């Protein structure tokens, strides 16, 4: 599954996208964030405050409880500040 990072999440992780293959126990967006945060210092920093992280699955906003099964593209980013 493909992950995308934007804004300071991207800067902290140090890349804008990557392919990952999380273990079977990681079923929701919230669990995926927790799993990512344990992958290294840069991830721990990016995801240190999961409450401010927003997520989208296949380009639609989702909550932390959303299931990731079948997702093609999951994006993580800070609160939006467009306009």
């Amino acid at each position: 599954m493909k992950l995308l990072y934007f804004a300071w999440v991207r800067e902290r992780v140090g890349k804008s996208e990557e392919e990952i293959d999380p273990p079977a126990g990681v079923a929701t967006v919230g669990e995926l964030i927790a799993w990512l945060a344990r992958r290294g210092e840069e991830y721990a920093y990016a995801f240190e405050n999961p409450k401010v992280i927003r997520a989208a699955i296949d380009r639609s906003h989702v909550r932390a409880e959303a299931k990731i099964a079948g997702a093609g593209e999951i994006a993580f980013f800070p609160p939006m500040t467009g306009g």
Partner: protein
Amino acid sequence: MAVTIRLQREAFDVAAEVAALTAGRADVGAVVTFTGVCRAEEGGEPIAALTLEHYPGMAEAEIARHVEEASVRWPLLGVTVIHRHGRLIPGEVIVLVATASSHRQAAFAAAEFLMDYLKTRAPFWKEVEKASGKTWVGAHRADDTAAERWSAPPPRHQAAK
């Protein structure tokens, strides 16, 4: 309804976009525009530039979905949304929302609805450059509150002609 949605790096001509929105329409009585401009200072400190990052693909689709939602809520004749990305300097236009209707209340309400959406839910992020360095702009509580007022069930109108 005439819909124009563009995300682009280039500057654009607000007057030409508004003219295009109403060209040849006999029934437009009201046009509301919102223009968001890169300010030259924030908290008393000069701003050198603003960089807008976006999520290509998702941003276009989400804006289109909200323009569609606006057209269900209000009797609109046309909507234009143009949002720039990349690096902008003070005085440059960041975003244009223009709405056309036979009636002013519909044009005002739809423009406010779309701006509240763009400020809080559209996948764009602003980074501001000052002498003290670059910082990502935080989300404003006031913007979230403004966006929440639209979450009640919308008053559906009769299909616009």
